[in-house]
């Protein structure tokens, strides 16, 4: 895991161009929905932005600034959604989000971690899930007579949220895979939290321990492919795990698998409800933040030359089309797009532990996202991340129906 010092080039080369705060020019549609940084939109001060956090990181690194006086609240209100990072990388070779994550790591190591995140870590250590619920209940949603392919080298990783809060998603994922004839297994008592909540809140030592254990579990069980219906787990496996350890398994999101099954004719969604106009919310961890992370240890020569060449994660290779292909295959479902979509999707407010650290802000951000969804004329907002779901179904302004894409597809089969 990189440390704050590793991102000094990013801190030093930022010159406040503002690209981290505003929608990319090719996506511009009008006055509204033009801001892409949730904290900057909410609080207004430049410190609440990618650019501001780089300034803060530099001053922390050099000792000019110390933690305290509300800095931790600012740092942990950031949803780490990565919009600043992708927008910056449209024009620059900088690691804005990784600097913010390194700053969180530094903050945590300085003992300034918010209490809510310490509590999450304690729960995971005790019960292997983020809610502190009994580990034995992780697969309570599973039908009693359920049998899977016990020796399959493909695992369906359910994740804490679907296992304990959104069991309809877990059941839907099982239904889709079975309908498509995919041989897979569930990890049952071997499944533990993916560790995203630790990694993204700067609790990197605890994250490393958990990640290494999960990788070892996959190895022991001969798992070569991990399918998940959770965007958070998906993003963690693809872009988080390689920061801590060597991974030998492939990760697929359920929408990628479903899109393949549909295109090969192995499943065929049928009309099952009245025609419906929906808009799709790209989860950060499924979209721009899911690009595979490739470790880089090199030298930055003058004028930005990276030796050896670096594999950049600019958001281009996130999962954007598969969910849309699935939606397009369900008869009667019509998709209308929001302005802030694909790599410029606006965070639901739940990312990076913001819900725990600053629930009022998270709820307000969800309301802003729903306001954008409603402006499209859609009757419902569709997504495929349980954390986005909890946020967008939760309290706040502009309530509107939320549909889980995995459940929607399963219902159409």
């Amino acid at each position, binding site marked *: 895991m990189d440390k704050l010092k590793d991102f000094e*080039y990013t*801190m*030093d*080369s*930022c*010159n*406040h*161009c*503002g*690209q981290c*705060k*505003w*929608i*990319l*020019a*090719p*996506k*511009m*549609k*009008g*006055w509204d929905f*033009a801001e892409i940084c949730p904290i900057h939109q909410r609080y*207004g*001060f*430049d*410190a*609440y932005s990618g*650019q*501001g956090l780089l*300034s*803060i990181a*530099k*001053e922390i690194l050099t000792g000019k*600034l110390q933690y305290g*006086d*509300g*800095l931790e609240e*600012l740092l942990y209100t950031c949803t780490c959604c990565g919009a600043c990072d*992708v*927008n910056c*990388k*449209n*024009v*620059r*070779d900088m690691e804005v989000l990784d600097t913010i994550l390194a700053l969180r790591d530094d903050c945590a190591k300085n003992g300034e971690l918010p209490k809510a995140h310490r509590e999450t870590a304690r729960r995971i250590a005790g019960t292997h899930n983020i809610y502190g619920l009994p580990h034995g209940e992780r697969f309570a949603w599973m039908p009693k007579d359920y049998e899977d392919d016990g020796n399959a080298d493909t695992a369906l990783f359910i994740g804490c949220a679907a296992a304990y809060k959104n069991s309809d998603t877990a059941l839907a994922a099982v239904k889709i895979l079975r309908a498509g004839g995919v041989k897979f297994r569930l990890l049952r008592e071997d499944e533990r939290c993916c560790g995203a909540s630790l990694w993204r809140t700067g609790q990197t030592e605890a994250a490393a321990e958990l990640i290494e254990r999960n990788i070892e579990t996959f190895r022991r069980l001969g798992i070569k492919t991990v399918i998940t219906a959770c965007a958070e787990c998906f993003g963690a496996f693809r872009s988080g795990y390689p920061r801590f350890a060597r991974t030998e398994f492939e990760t697929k999101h359920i929408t990628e698998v479903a899109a393949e099954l549909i295109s090969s004719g192995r499943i065929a969604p049928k009309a099952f409800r009245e025609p419906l106009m929906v808009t799709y919310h790209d989860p950060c961890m499924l979209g721009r933040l899911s690009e595979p992370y490739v470790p880089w240890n090199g030298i*930055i020569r*003058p*004028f*930005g*030359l*990276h030796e050896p*060449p*670096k594999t*950049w994660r*600019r*958001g*281009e290779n*996130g999962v*954007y089309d598969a969910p849309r292909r699935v939606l397009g295959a369900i008869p009667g479902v019509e998709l209308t797009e929001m302005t802030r979509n694909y*790599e410029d999707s606006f965070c639901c407010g739940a990312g990076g532990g913001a819900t725990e650290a600053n629930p009022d802000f998270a709820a307000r951000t969800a309301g802003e996202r729903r306001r954008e969804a409603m402006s499209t004329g859609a009757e419902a907002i569709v997504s495929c991340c349980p954390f986005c779901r909890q946020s967008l179904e939760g309290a706040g302004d502009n309530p509107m129906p939320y549909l889980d894409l995995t459940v929607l597809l399963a219902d159409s089969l």
Partner: protein
Amino acid sequence: MSLSREAYRELAAVVGDAYISEKEHILSGNRVKTPEIPFEYHSADAILLPGSTEEVQAIVKICNRYGISFIPTVSGCSADAFAKHANSVIIHLKRMNRIIEINEEDRFAVIEPGVRQVQLYPEVRRRGLSYTAASVGPGGSVLANFTSTSGDNHVQHGTSRANRYLLGVEMVLPDGEIVRTGSLQTGSGWFCPDGPGPGLRGIVKGYFGIHGQLGIVTRAAIALDPCRGPREIRAEGVSPHQRVYLDSDCSKVRVFTFNDLGSLCDAMVKLGEAEIASTVQKFFYLPMTLMMTDSANAFWEKWNSGIKEEMAMPLVVHLATRSVEELEYEETILGDVARENGGVRVRPEIESWWDEHMDFFMVFGVLQRVLRLGGGWAPIKLGADSIRHMCEVGESISSYIHDYTDTGILFDAPESFQIVPMEYGHSAHIELLFMYDRTNPSVRPEVGKFTARARASDIADHFHAEMPGCLNQTAEQLGPLYSNYHVWLRRIKESFDTNNVANPML
């Protein structure tokens, strides 16, 4: 140093506690980290986010009462948007972001300073209108572009500088008085910049806007042009490989190269005389190469593959007309002018890059790739005069640039300056954008030396190519070349800002 408690309380009472902060980490977000600027910055003592003209007025009056300097800002990209003195506050105008009116009949828009390019441009375009935008990126303040810069831009051949499109203005003067200029003053609306008596536009702008240091513009009207091209732009792909198209039978981009600057100069003059084309520019090929590549490594690969020789004298022309017949006519003229002056079309893959990045001709997001080589860039020249004089100035750069680029600290190429004609060749803007790595601690003196050398060249050769600055030392040097503008600038400043609190000069 922090503000007195009395001053802070009074300021907080104006904007509310949520919109003022003196916390160190909040101030850090607006503390400059520009190593190459030749003077020391201070930290602001507080940052305020006012929401109305009345709040701005109240803040300014408090600043006068307590002797606090204030620095207005929106995007925060300019070196002038930071505290240069102790006992300063930053007035961040982000919350004042309303589009007050878009008048389609009389073709103007009334905006507050917080309205950004990506917000206004699509709004006016869908109404069949457009405006001339400088290359400040998506988050740049439209109002600041018109009131606080020269407003030079890449589409000014068929239009003009942004500052010539400024209409009615509402401004809080350095002492807190609110002034409304032109027709606005008489209650006749925003349509006219001047009323009876002396024009106030020059007062608003000083010599070129922000360097006038004269208060805070809180609302302004800008004139709009009819849009040449479709109302909707089509974008495809995901960052950083988006494509932006103008689906029109009346839009074409042509890119030529010429053997020498003289031939290219003749072609630009002829295109102006023929009054064709929306955009004509001798573009700088170093930024062009950066725009066409998606990483610093890819840039170096392309740069070292012969692109600089191939594109040494590029002329980029955008034809945007109102009918197919008009386009055919302009294309014929363009072809004749190019042929007569030795211009040759570039490879299709280079020309098609422009066809696929039409946002360049609108809000210029892609131009920020010039920051990729370590984040450092600075211009020399930036002035305006005739096309031929600008070419003369450009040609002179090669006599001294190597002294600075050969050290490896600064990076550029002798011919990599741009000349952008304005108003069909009525005049032209010149700019050489040189790069440096901000992470290199040796940068600061080298940037200063190169810009000073460029300025000395102008003074010695009586060139009219430098943008006169506000820094006293620079103003003293360049003033005599520009009718002693600096003497007037100071007198105006002293008259309007008796307490010297409005973003004081260094």
